[in-house]
C-alpha cells in the first residue's frame, strides 16, 4: 500500500525523485481521509516554492484540504489531466494521480522527508 521508493511529508504528500526533479502527490492515506475528490487547485508552472508552503488545495465531497510542498524549487509541470478527472487521485494516488513536478533547488530537502517505513510508523502514531 505504501510504495517503498518514495519519500513522505508529515502533511501526507509523497515525493518521487528523478535526477534534479521531484514528482509530488498525496498519499493513499490522504486521499482515503478526504473521500471523493472533486477539484484540485494547482500552482502555476514557473512558480518558485519553498518547503512547507501551500501550493494548492484539494476539495472533496467531505472537506477542503491544503497541499503543501515537501521540497523547495520551481514548479516545472502540473498534471493537467486532474482538471477534468480529479477522481484519478482517489484511484491511483501514487501513479496517474501525481500533481506537480518540481525542479529541486536543494536536493537535501528530500533527505529530511520520511522513508516509507518511517511514514508507516508516523501513520500508526496518528491513529490515537
Amino acid at each position, binding site marked *: 500500500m505504501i510504495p517503498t521508493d518514495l519519500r513522505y511529508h508529515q502533511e501526507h504528500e509523497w515525493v518521487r525523485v528523478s535526477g534534479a526533479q521531484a514528482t509530488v502527490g498525496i498519499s493513499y492515506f490522504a486521499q482515503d481521509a478526504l473521500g471523493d475528490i472533486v477539484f484540485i*487547485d494547482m500552482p502555476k508552472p514557473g512558480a518558485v516554492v519553498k518547503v512547507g508552503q501551500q501550493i494548492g*488545495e484539494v*476539495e472533496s465531497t467531505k472537506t477542503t484540504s491544503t497541499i503543501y510542498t515537501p521540497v523547495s524549487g520551481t514548479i516545472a509541470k502540473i498534471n493537467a489531466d486532474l482538471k477534468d478527472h480529479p477522481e484519478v487521485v482517489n484511484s491511483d494516488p501514487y501513479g496517474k494521480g501525481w500533481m506537480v513536478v518540481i525542479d529541486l533547488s536543494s536536493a537535501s530537502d528530500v533527505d529530511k522527508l520520511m522513508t516509507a517505513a518511517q511514514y508507516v510508523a508516523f501513520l500508526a502514531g496518528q491513529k490515537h
Partner: protein
Amino acid sequence: MTSQKQIAILGAGPGGYVAAIRAAQLGARVTVIESHALGGVCLNWGCIPSKALLSVVELGDKVKKAADRGLLVQGPVMYDLARMVARKNTVVATLVKGIATLFKAWNIEHVQGTGSLRDRQTVTVAAADGTPRDIQADAIVIATGSSWPNLPQFPIDGQQLLTSQHLLDLDCIPASLLIVGAGVEGCEFAALYSGLGTQVTIVELMAHVLPLEDDDISSTMERELKKRGVTVVTGTTVERLERSPMAITAHLKDGTQVATEKLLVSVGRGLNSRGIGLEQVGVQTGRRGEILVNERMETTVPGIYAIGDVVGTVMLAHVASAQGKVAVENIMGHQATVRYDIIPAGIFTLPEIGRVGVTEQQARERVQAAGQNPDQALTVGRFRYAGLGKAQATGDTTGLFKVIAESPSGRILGVHIVGAHAADLVHEAAMAMQVGATVGQMAEMIHAHPTLSEGMMEAAEDVEGKAIHQARKKMS
C-alpha cells in the same frame, strides 16, 4: 381643514417606488417621475434579470451531473440564450406590471419623463416630446440612482466593450469574454457565462476576487470560479486595448495578453446627481457627487430628501428601499432612521454568498484599533456544508458557514456563508444580530433536521469548539 401632503419622487427604482407606496400608505398624495421603466436598474437591468439567467445555468449544472445521481437525460446540455433572454424579459415585465398595479391601488401618479428641481417645492418634468410640466410638492425625494460609468480607457460601444446591461440581452453566446473587475457583478457574470460555455477570463486589480468579502469567502469563490473553467488573474489590470473588428487584445500590466471576443467593464458605478437641478436649489453633494444627507435622509435643503445609490452610502437595492421608507416616514411626521450596522447582502454567484456584519479582517482591525488583542477579543466558528446531511443528500457539498463573535460576550459581529441558498440562509444571523442574540443563543436554538440551516447552528457551536459533526483533528 387639513390638506393632503404632496410628495414628488424622482426615480422609480427600488428606493423611489418603495418610498412612494409607503408615503401613500401614510396618507400622502404621491407623484413619481421616472424616464425609464418602473423598478429601475435593479428590476430591469440588474438584480432580477441576472438571477433569471443564472437560475438556468444553475439548473444546467445540475443536469450535467444528473447521470451520477441516476437521472438519465438524453443528449448534452445546450443553452438557447435567445430563449433565456426572452423568458427573463417576461419575468421582468411581470414584476414591472406588479409595481404599476400597486401604484394604481395606492393612487400614485407615474409621470413619464426626466425631472429636475426648479425650486424647493417644484419639479419640472421634461416629457419625451419635450413639453415641460411643473409638479408642486410639499416635499421632494431624490432617488435617481446610479449608472454604468463611462471610463475613457474603456469606451463602451455595446458591441465589443460592454456593460452588464448589454450582457443581459445578448442573443448568442460569445466564444470568449474578458471581465475587468472581480467584484460582485464581475463574479456573477463570470459564473453565468462560464456556465453557458464561454471561455471567461476575469482580471482583478486587488490580490483576490471579491476583495471586500471575508478572506475565507473570496478564496472559496476563487476556487469555484477556477472549477468552472474561469481563468482568474489577480493583482493586475488592463493597461491598454488593441482592437480589431473581430477581437480585442487586452495588454495587462503584468505583461501578459488576453485575446477576447467581448469585454465586460465591471468597475464601479457613477452617481446620477447631475442635471437634476441640485445647484438650482442648493442641495450639496460630496466629492464623488453623492448627495449629502442626514440620518433622516434629508439633504442640506429642508424638505428635500435623497435616498438610494445617489447618496452613495451602501449601494444595494434593499438599502435604497429602507432609506426610502425612512425618508417618507420623516416627511409624514414620524421619527425614523436607517440602521446600517445590520445589512444582509447576497452575491449570486454559483454557489451563492450571503453576508451580514463585518468580515474577520474588519473585526480584527477594529479590535486592534481599540487596543485589544484580536486573538483574545474575537472568536471564529466555521462549519462546512459537507458536514450537513441535507447537503450530502442534495449534492450541495461545496461551501461553508463562518461566524465571527466578540469574546467573551458572544455578541455576533459578522456571519458569512458561501454555498447553496447562502443569501437566504444569512437572514437567521441578521435577525439574531438585530435583536442582540449571542452566538450561544444561536447555537442553543433547535434547528430542524435535515436542513442547510443546521450549518448556522454548527458554526455557532464551533465558536466554542462544540460543533457536533466536525472532527477536531486537522486532516492532511
